[in-house]
């Protein structure tokens, strides 16, 4: 299967006349797992927001399964970088996960049993079902993150967008989180944004580097040249304990 799931054609985005993203071209196919790395402020989160239609490109075209982003939202599950809410917000875990079903339930209607089943299924998948009636703010950061992953999965998405999923996961829970990622791999198209090159390289199939421009060759390989261009400084290629090699050997010069 080589269906094109996400396509960006020469996408530019300006904020106050300053380019935030320049000439992004990207094609992702069904069940691809793309990791996007890059420096802070390089536009990683902005790119995800473009895919979701939360911001509109100044120039260029984005299609999600052949549709514009605001129509394509229904195919996507989204894990924001962080959800800011008051710790005593009156919401249970179940109510939060059900929000993932908003796009599948008509306005004015209550959630139905199919929505509840999907939410429960998603909670099982992240191992948080026994907490379903707890108040969301009373959970630890790592547990909350799992609930938000469940919320992203509750819509049975074809595309999963993860923004820094490891950022608020405490170390003991990271292993479990990797397992979760493994189990989702090849079941849906996944785009994961992270500043952590080690994490990205260990789990994804393809890597892109983003700093206003996207450095991407449709593979897991990035050249030293790409990274230096993106990070605007010499990049140290030594990384410890990486299961896979990320970078091509330094051949030239």
């Amino acid at each position, binding site marked *: 299967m080589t269906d094109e799931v996400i396509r960006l054609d020469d996408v530019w985005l300006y904020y106050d006349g300053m380019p935030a993203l320049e000439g992004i071209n990207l094609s992702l196919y069904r069940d691809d797992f793309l990791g996007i790395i890059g420096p802070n402020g390089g536009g990683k989160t902005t790119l995800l927001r473009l895919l979701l239609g*939360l911001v509109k490109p100044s120039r260029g075209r984005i299609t999600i399964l052949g549709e514009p982003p605001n129509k394509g939202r229904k195919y996507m599950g989204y894990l924001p970088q962080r*959800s800011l809410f008051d710790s005593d917000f009156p919401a249970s875990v179940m*109510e939060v996960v059900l929000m*993932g079903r*908003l796009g599948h339930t008509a*306005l004015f209607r209550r959630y139905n049993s199919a929505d509840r089943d999907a939410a429960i299924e998603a909670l099982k998948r992240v191992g948080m079902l026994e907490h379903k009636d707890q108040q969301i703010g009373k959970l630890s950061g790592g547990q909350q993150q799992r609930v938000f992953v469940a919320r992203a999965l509750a819509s049975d998405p074809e595309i999963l967008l993860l923004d820094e999923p490891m950022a608020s996961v405490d170390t003991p829970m990271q292993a479990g989180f990797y397992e979760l990622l493994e189990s989702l791999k090849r079941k849906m198209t996944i785009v994961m944004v992270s500043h952590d090159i080690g994490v990205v390289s260990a789990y994804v199939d393809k890597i892109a580097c983003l700093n206003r421009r996207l450095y991407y060759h449709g593979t897991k390989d990035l050249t030293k040249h790409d990274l230096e261009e993106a990070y605007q400084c010499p990049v140290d290629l030594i990384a410890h304990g990486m299961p896979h090699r990320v970078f091509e050997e330094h051949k030239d010069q």
Partner: protein
Amino acid sequence: MIEALMQYEFMHNALWAGLLAAVACGIIGTYVVVKRMTFISGGISHASFGGIGLGYYLSHYISWMTPVIGALIFTVASALGIGMVVRRSKLTEDTAIGIMWSLGMAIGIIFIGITPGYIISDLFGYLFGNILIVPISDIIMMIVLDAIIIGVVILLYKEFFALSFDQEFSTAAGIPTERLYLILLGLIALTVVLLIRVVGIILVIALLTIPSATARQYTHSMKNMMWLSILIGMASVIGGLRLSYELDIASGATIILFSAAIFTISTIFTRLCRHRTHSEAISTD
């Protein structure tokens, strides 16, 4: 005897007005508190004074116009206006609210001033409430506004819930959050108008926040928070009215003080309970 009955009749209307206001406060106040919309609600309530002034002035020229109808139209329009300005322009939200807040007041003061033969106590009534002279027509309007608020919240409960929790995610999930937010602002405007008679423009914000803030200390469910806020609002109205009657002091302000007292006692009480269970947990370890 007749005088006493008259007194009773007035109290009767006042009580109904207060209870009807408590319903709207409990529901909309819950959103104001959890979505942190206190400042914008303050802006909307103060802007409503512009509508009061316009209505007061125009009621001399248009037969169906009253200050309350003027406030209704003007407040809803300014709430929607501020919502759209904040979304579409580069103005920061708090600046825009500040402008609307004072602009509304200024319009109100000017129009009341140029109204032929205006009475200063009328002005005072709208600013600080005058629940003891609520006419039956206002009670009917309050019932209608309550019905609209309840109906919309039932229909859009899950959308408003998601909007309050995480607006960006809700947009990404595919619901029209921008329009929903405007509808919520519109409902706040209706609630403000409902409350003007009871506590007045200046004190509206208290009844929009205190009962819900109190309720929040006891429940982790938004629906329960709404029910509890309504009950606390009603208790404040009944207690405050009674007290103001006994002591012959301003009723709107007494209702607010009564609800603030409930909030204070409740805060101390819940703190003590939490402290107690906490120390028990330590001692059993």
